[in-house]
């Protein structure tokens, strides 16, 4: 068994904890990187304690979890680090857009009423997505059997579409006229 000085032991343990993709236990340290060295329990404990202290003021911390030691980012930095993992949600389905449109134009409206107009059931998922995005909220319950929730759009919805109020939503007829006019206006293309 070779000897290893404390500075080298600390570097080796530190590097091992860093390059491992899982938490590393003292046993695993002894079985792998430290296999050929003579290291007392005290020396190993001391080095780990020192490393925990060394990283206390830094952006990452050395913590002990069930299966060993691991480095992890400082929890107070989480709001900023989240930006590094961006998931782009898929585009909204036609069902989603129609439901949103019906809530916008016909609010307050129950899910049953939306289903009546669309002729198909509205999935709970759609209502959940629209609610989570804070575009739609429940403003009351209709006093009919079952007391179904009444949905309306939110201020966030208006802000997203740069509208001051719902009355600025273009009417469907006007919109179609506009589209038709564009087609007439641009016959050459």
């Amino acid at each position, binding site marked *: 068994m070779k000897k290893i000085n404390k500075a080298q032991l600390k570097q080796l343990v530190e590097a091992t904890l860093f390059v491992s993709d899982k938490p590393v236990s003292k046993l695993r340290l002894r079985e792998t990187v430290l296999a050929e060295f003579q290291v007392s329990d005290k020396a190993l404990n001391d080095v780990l304690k020192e490393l925990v202290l060394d990283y206390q003021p830094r952006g990452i911390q050395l913590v002990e979890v069930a299966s060993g030691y691991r480095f992890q980012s400082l929890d107070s930095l989480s709001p900023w680090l989240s930006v590094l993992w961006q998931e782009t949600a898929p585009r909204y389905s036609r069902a989603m857009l129609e439901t949103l449109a019906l809530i916008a134009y*016909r609010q*307050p409206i129950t899910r049953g009423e939306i289903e009546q107009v669309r002729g198909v059931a509205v999935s709970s998922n759609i209502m959940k997505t629209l609610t989570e995005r804070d575009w739609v909220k429940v403003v009351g319950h209709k006093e009919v059997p079952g007391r179904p929730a009444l949905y309306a759009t939110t201020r966030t919805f208006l802000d997203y579409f740069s509208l001051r109020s719902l009355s600025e939503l273009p009417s469907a007829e006007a919109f179609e006229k506009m589209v038709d006019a564009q087609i007439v206006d641009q016959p050459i293309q």
Partner: protein
Amino acid sequence: MSEDQQAVIEEAERTGSEHNEPVQQPLPLAFINGEALIEKPQDLYIPPDALEVILESFEGPLDLLLYLIRKQKFDITSLPVAQITAQYMEYVEVMRTLKLELAAEYLLMAAILAEIKSRLLLPRRSDAPEDEEDPRAELIRRLQEYELVKQAAEDLDAQPRLERDVHAVQVAVHESVQPLRVEPEVSLQELVLAFSHAMKRAAAFEHHTIEREALSTRERMSLILSVVSASRYTPLEELFTVEEGKAGVVVSFLAILELVKEQLLICVQAGPYARIHVKLGSYEENQ
């Protein structure tokens, strides 16, 4: 040439010479053109098994030539074509006999060497231009260039490399890090189009008569619903905002009438000219 290959060759030379002790009649090394080749090539003797290893360790004719030049401690620029060609040919012959598939490149190089040799042997014509190129020049240039590449490959191999010499560090994020969801974009046009589709379909299927209502009224209906409660009566005047002016009051009034009609709101008045109160709920339920 790497140390490994050098070692293989040296080992081959050593065992080869032991094997070749003149105690017994030497076995023919190979048959070339039907004749047994007993004498080993001048610079070294390689046992057949090792030869294959060595052959594989050469990266082609240029590599072999470089090896021969280095072995004899020649200077590339003075390239003694006659000696090198002779040694090269010996190798090639042995290779050809032992290994059926000798890369064509080795034979091509043999031809180049023979050509250079013959050009060097020819007497220089008196009317030849002064600056006529040395027939060896092109080969010397190629050897120098190849030597450089060989060196570069070795240097590259010695460069600290991920996975082998250094290991990338990746630290886990604290569990409070949540992936940032980028929500899909929706344009106002899409929204209007979706509404128009939904309504058209409804009209086609159910001959629904769709009443036109001012959107501002529907918005106000949502607002009123979120203000009033089912357990407590709200004075009607609280639902009007004087600052909005007449138009605003009218919108609120229409919204209240619509909510009452849809049985979402109850209006009560204790007596003539008394205050009107509203609360959530339907008349039917209250009766």
